[in-house]
């Protein structure tokens, strides 16, 4: 199997994406508390759900970026 190198730049990029996903999930949690008028303790009591949502969003972003990359490669191959 080929050796792969995960560069520092890539790691920073992925951490940024994960942080954005976590931020979105937290904002969703805050919005839901405001919209449905539930208890503010859900800011911390629902953290496990927030993390799961963040993870799902991150995996979706991986899928979408992988899809974009594959399409980009196919276009390049066709052009050649």
């Amino acid at each position, binding site marked *: 199997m080929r050796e792969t190198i995960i560069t520092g730049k890539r790691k920073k990029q992925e951490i940024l994406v994960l942080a954005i996903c976590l931020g979105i999930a937290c904002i969703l949690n805050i919005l839901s*508390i405001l*919209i449905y008028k*539930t208890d503010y303790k*859900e800011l911390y009591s629902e953290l496990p759900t927030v993390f799961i949502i963040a993870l799902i969003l991150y995996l979706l972003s991986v899928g979408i970026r992988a899809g974009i990359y594959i399409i980009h490669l196919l276009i390049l191959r066709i052009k050649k």
Partner: protein
Amino acid sequence: MLDRRSFIKEVGLGIGAGILATAPWLDVFSEKNHTNTLRCKIAVIGTGSRGQFLMSLLVNNPKVEIIAVCDDYPLNLKKGLELVPGARAYTDYRKVLDNKDVEAVVIATPPIYHAGITIDAFAVGKHVFSEKALSIYMDEVLQMYNAYKNSGKVFFVGQQRYFDSRYLKAISNLQTGNYGAIQSIRIHWDRNTDWRRPVPSPELERKINWRLYKATSRGLMTELACHQLQVGMWAMKSIPNKVMGVGSLIARAHEREVYDNVSCIYSFDNGVKMTYNSTNSNKFYGLEEQILCEKATFELEKGKYYYETIPPAPGIMQLLHDMEDKTFNTIPIAGSSWIPETAGQNKGEYILDQKPDGDGTKELLEAFAEAVITQKQPRNFAEESYYGTQLCLLGHQAMEEERVVVFPDKYKINYLNHTKSV
């Protein structure tokens, strides 16, 4: 051995006056009596299936010595002796009562014999445990109670729910008022059994299958209702004063005289109704005592209670659900103008942290042994048990006479909302 502290811990009620307000009869387990090294000598009269079950619990109680067994049916007597090989065997209960070593009797015969044996036992100074129902006649039930009152002896009845930890905890919770006033009580016990037992010869039919005949049984009311009606009375701390009912024979008319399908409504003075339904030809819904309060519903057999209003799901879950709903559900052309109010999907909470081992029979018998040793009758237990039988017989009367029956003054004793008529 179950002492008061262990039993109270099991119930989870905490030590103190709160328990005794719900169940004054629990004072029988008071530790101050120091009964651990003492034993009582008991005779069991009636060693059929129920008697054998009681004996299987009694033989494991170090405070009990079964010194005599009695049954006029040889097969039952043999089975009783197999459980207690060293006991003296009798076929006539009077000879048991003549035995001066016997301090107490446990009566597990068919109900038509309870009154005679009980009254005779009190007359010669024995303590008595009688299985429920006390009798199939309200007159006899009163005679039994009066004999007990005049004897100064201990009187227990086989109403084990009074010692069942689920019921103790549930009733105690109910009576705090935290769940609001009781609005309605719904009780049912459905089975799909024929009660018929094999009979070695035809002349033994009515002896063995006594449950099936009107001369010896009140059927579903004395066999089943008797256990459950007292729960409603206990929860309400009141005795219902009216009852109406309908009984019928539907599926089992070919094999019995007593009803296989009964339905009664008992009415308390404050308007609360306690309904009782029972059938012998469908077991889907099993048995349950449902106590409906303003803020919660208790299901005592399941050992659960359900708040009327459950807290909403967390906001984030509601948001995700609504997003999913809007994304994937079809747009309705016309919405329903009425949504059926089917039973809530509330999963409820458990009354106890753990499932109790039994149904209270073991604790009931242990309480009886304590009471015999200390020679102290637990408070209110005889009165609660008295009305447990009288209420089921009153329901039977209402069904037979097809009218609303008011609780007769002559059967009232001084207890709760009843006063003995002079």
